[in-house]
């Protein structure tokens, strides 16, 4: 027993470490089913485990590549960079780290493009940039993207991957971005234009409590964590264990807050269908 158990533990550990660094290593152990996956295969499969369907997080650029028709995307407002309005400790360093990690100036990429042939204004947040949190720049870029949709009379698609919610480091300014974006979505609504919200793992806090939940149609990737408060905060507050599947996409569909769960490989086509149907 002993000779058999120990090596197995060893393998699990090294593979477990590699799994954190997906997709750099050659192989990875699936976070969902623990199957050993060849990373190239995982990439080919939209970073979805071919065995269990576990959806790995994507960067904004990967998402853009999978969502917007090739050669149609025009980025806007990439010149917007954050300041440190509160003089918050270590904020500049965190921004710099995020920029190095994502090669993006901020946690969202916005622009115009076509999705499955349908024109749309697109915004995609990136969890790797300070948890995809929303400060002034994210708020301003998304608001401008919504205004652009109104101006061009096209639909709006926002893909959220923002576990951080409103960005603490910009304090009250971050909080107010929730109101700013929601108000702009109200104008989009009045213009009779569609907004499709795509919720990916994770979407929480001030992002969920503003543009995340405001889609004419809210779509979610399978198994994504979506909610207002973090599960740890809730557990500490109510002093009980949370049920299995709590705050996952399926839970939100069951409770009526998400319209459909769409596997990644069908997302582009699905978005195209809705944009076509809602076309003014």
């Amino acid at each position: 027993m002993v000779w058999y158990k120990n090596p197995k533990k060893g393998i699990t550990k090294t593979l477990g470490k590699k799994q954190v660094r997906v997709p750099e290593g050659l192989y990875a152990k699936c976070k969902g089913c623990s199957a050993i996956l060849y990373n190239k295969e995982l990439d080919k499969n939209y970073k979805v485990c071919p065995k269990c369907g576990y959806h790995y997080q994507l960067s904004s650029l990967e998402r853009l590549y999978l969502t917007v028709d090739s050669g149609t995307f025009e980025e806007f407002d990439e010149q917007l960079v954050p300041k440190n309005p509160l003089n918050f400790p270590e904020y500049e360093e965190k921004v710099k780290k995020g920029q190095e990690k994502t090669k993006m100036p901020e946690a969202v990429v916005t622009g115009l493009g076509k999705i499955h042939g349908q024109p749309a204004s697109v915004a995609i947040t990136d969890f790797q940039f300070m948890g995809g949190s929303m400060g002034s720049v994210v708020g301003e870029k998304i608001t401008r993207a919504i205004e652009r949709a109104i101006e061009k009379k096209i639909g709006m698609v926002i893909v959220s991957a923002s576990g951080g919610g409103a960005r603490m480091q910009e304090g009250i300014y971050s909080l107010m971005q929730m109101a700013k974006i929601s108000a702009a979505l109200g104008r989009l609504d009045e213009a009779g234009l569609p907004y499709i919200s795509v919720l990916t793992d994770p979407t929480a806090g001030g992002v969920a409590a503003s543009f995340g939940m405001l889609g004419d149609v809210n779509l979610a990737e399978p198994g994504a964590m979506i909610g207002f408060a973090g599960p740890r905060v809730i557990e500490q507050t109510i002093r009980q264990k949370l049920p299995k599947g709590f705050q996952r996409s399926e839970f939100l569909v069951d409770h009526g807050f998400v319209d459909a769960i769409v596997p990644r490989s069908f997302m582009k086509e699905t978005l195209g269908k809705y944009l076509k149907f809602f076309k003014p």
Partner: protein
Amino acid sequence: MKNSKTTAHHSAKKAPKPESSASLAWKRVQLARHPQRPFALDYIEKIFTGFTEIHGDRAFGDDHATITGFAYLDEQPVVVVAQQKGRDTKENIKRNFGMPHPEGYRKAMRVMKMAEKFKKPVIAFIDTPGAYPGLGAEERGQAEAIARNLLEMAKLRTPVIAVVIGEGGSGGALGIGVANKVLMMENSIYSVISPEGCAAILWNDREMIQQASDVLRLTAEDLLSFKIIDEIVPEPEGGAHLDHDRAAQNLKKALEKTLKPLLALSPTALEAQRYEKFRAMGVFQEK
């Protein structure tokens, strides 16, 4: 982890910092949470006449941390939305410590729509540590309830005034706070995260709340300088808890003064002013 820090805390407790050296922000946090501070119902009773409460979101239930109703400010009918804390344990359990569930935000939206329909101004009293983080709250869509209010409040075609009377706890506060004019009582606070939450994230130490209160810039003066709020309502010396009547008098005066010019604006102008106000918020660099 907690244990390893006990000794340090212990010695800190032995030599407490003199009151005067505590930061202004931290003093404000304590005053904003003072159990004897006037709460929404205290202000409602002292400022308005003929307050009638109405209940329920017409979908799930009635949230006791959120109060809605109709009243008169002098001769002017107003629709009141308020977050209510409790003064003792029993009342606090009833009021859920001022932390609304989704049905609270939906009830608030129901009466605000009524305000629009009947062309009455809305006055919102903000006083919450935050929207409740609980199982039922998530099941019933806390995030959706707040988001919907942000969108709908921005569109309201009637005057909206919001006053932070105590704690302005993040999205839970903003959920009734998208107003034409936002006032803050002198010793109230308004923040994206609680000082405790900030301290836990920044320093992994909830005891660092004084420092966290400082870095968050959550005082009324801070927010006025950021142009996030429009006016600071002075409190009696030492804080509103020492003289409820005076605090209410000051707030009443401020409300009268703020409401008058808003009543002269058209519904379209009100909506536009509110939109532009929030549209302008944010600090960034455009290279």
